[in-house]
């Protein structure tokens, strides 16, 4: 197990390094940051000056190595627009996005696990159909449109919930639903499949034969075993969700990392964009690593093979 964990860790670090390289190249090679920074009325001389001051005249690999070296110590440079330390702004905004992500995944669990379990214990019934319909609809619903529909009905027509900002916990309800709904189908399908498999296994039959109450069998014996891969999947989905939160945060004016990314893109704030992409990518890498470890811990075939 330890050997597997270390090997996976090495791969994860290598992936993180590659991601940092890709991010840096994408943003530096596709455009000229000095021109973007100088604005429209700048002369050639201005652009040259900016290039020198910010170090954009150095060789690409030197710039990358310098940036990476600083990033490893938590220094992501200064924001071109806000003129403050990028790291300060990013880590100040991170908690809001984490709260949103946690609420969204909680919502997804509350909706998908009962439905997945119901669909598994009553296959080919109305519950199963309902769960399947919800999954198909959920995958086709554009999240930003779904968010706008909620804003229209819950926020404007019925005035039940605030439509923007982060003042109270109520502000997070609609964004959490809009964001969490998107990952519901995947979690539900895995819960259903896992439960079906576990319920057909020998130890459940033994438990039934011993006369244990169906409720106990379901929750204590079956769900407990079926849920762990679901948790692993949820970890990965959580990482995807943080990446997708840019749309939802922009719609609901939630002052998190996604909204910051959106603002930075508008302002062509390169150091900020780089830092956000890297932070989100690292989150994803850490989460998938944890998910892999969880799966390997459960399934000896993975850690040997």
């Amino acid at each position, binding site marked *: 197990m330890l050997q597997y964990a270390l090997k996976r860790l090495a*791969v994860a670090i*290598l*992936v*993180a390094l*590659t*991601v940092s390289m*890709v*991010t840096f190249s*994408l*943003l530096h090679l*596709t*455009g000229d940051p000095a021109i*973007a920074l100088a604005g429209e009325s700048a002369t050639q001389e201005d652009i040259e000056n900016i290039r020198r001051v910010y170090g954009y005249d150095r060789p690409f690999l030197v710039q990358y190595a310098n940036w990476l070296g600083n990033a490893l110590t938590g220094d992501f440079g200064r924001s071109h627009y806000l003129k403050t330390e990028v790291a300060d702004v990013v880590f100040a905004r991170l908690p809001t996005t984490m709260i949103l992500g946690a609420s969204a995944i909680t919502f997804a669990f509350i909706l998908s696990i009962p439905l997945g379990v119901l669909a598994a214990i009553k296959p080919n019934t109305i519950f199963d159909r309902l769960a399947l319909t919800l999954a*198909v*609809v959920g*995958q*086709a*619903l*554009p*999240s*930003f*449109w779904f968010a*706008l*529909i909620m*804003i*229209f009905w819950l926020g*404007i027509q019925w005035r039940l919930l605030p439509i923007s900002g982060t003042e109270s916990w109520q502000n997070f309800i609609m964004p959490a639903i809009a964001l969490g709904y998107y990952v519901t189908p995947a979690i539900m399908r895995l819960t259903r499949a896992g439960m079906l498999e576990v319920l057909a296994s020998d130890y459940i039959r033994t438990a039934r034969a011993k006369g244990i109450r169906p409720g106990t069998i379901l929750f204590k014996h079956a769900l407990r075993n079926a849920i762990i891969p679901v948790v692993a999947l949820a970890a990965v989905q959580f990482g*995807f969700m*943080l*990446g*997708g939160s*840019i*749309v939802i945060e*922009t719609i609901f004016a939630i002052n998190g990392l*996604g909204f910051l*990314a*959106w603002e930075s*893109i*508008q302002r*062509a704030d390169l150091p900020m*964009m780089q830092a*956000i*992409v890297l932070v*989100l*990518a690292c989150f*994803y*890498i850490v989460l*998938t690593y944890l998910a892999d470890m969880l799966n390997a811990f459960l399934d000896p075939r993975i850690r040997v093979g």
Partner: protein
Amino acid sequence: MSPPNGPSTAGTITALPVAEQILEPSPAAKLRRRVFGHAGVTIGAGVLLVIIAVALLAPVLAPFDPLDQDLTQRVIPPVWHEKGSWEHPLGTDQFGRDYLSRLMYGARISLLIGFVAMLISGFIGTALGVAAGYFGGRVDMVVNFIITTRLSLPVILVALAVVSIIGNSLWIVIWVLGLLIWDRFAVVMRSSVQQVRDLDYVAAAKALGCSTTRIILSEIMPNIVNNLIVVATLEMAHAILLEAALSYLGLGVQPPAPSWGLMISEGKGMIFFDSWLIGIPGAALFAMVLAINLLGDGLRDVTAPENRN
């Protein structure tokens, strides 16, 4: 592939009367029956065909030019409102452009972006996945690494950032999406190839001295093409949703082009009183993606080997 009379010929050559053999439907007929008997496939394909027809015939069907502004005819509600009229069945937007015409032309943009981005990503993902699955070993390790790296990058964020830097046009959006969303193709193709790679007919082809290219193209690909089609439909839907999100955020298709995501974005300032400006293009987007997904999910059910008989 299987012999023309299906599995029934295997052990019953002498026992089975000839008449019954003829009554046994051919595999093609069985497939047809499964396809048309599947509600998801029928509904999905039906809706999608209607949308494609409307998109192709937009110049004939659309009552107005989708870009023609008429400032005397601004924000007319659709026909089911009391103030609506049949002149503009779905009303007009804040520039007086006919909403139905914009919706029809918008279908072209969504379909074009979805289809071409799917082709690009399908090509990349299939090449990577097939190589990883067939060769295994080091190749597999490298491809896995590339897939993991790609999955770590947040798609929307990277697409937005790149488009904002290199500037946006329809084709840039198509290429950025195509170069980003190949991951599912690679993952599915890899495992599909792994399943057929060691089967007897591949070994037979190897023993006959077929080249690697030939084995992959004429022995392996035909047997995994059903999985490829399923992923292709789902990824096309994915690309369409991403384009809509990019356009909604202002970094996809540029005005005045009639992209559905852009239409929703332009209408969002009027959500208080003219919510249909958001409702109509959103519903169209939802219907299109739902139809494609139903078709994809349905094709998976229909072509799954366990449902063959």
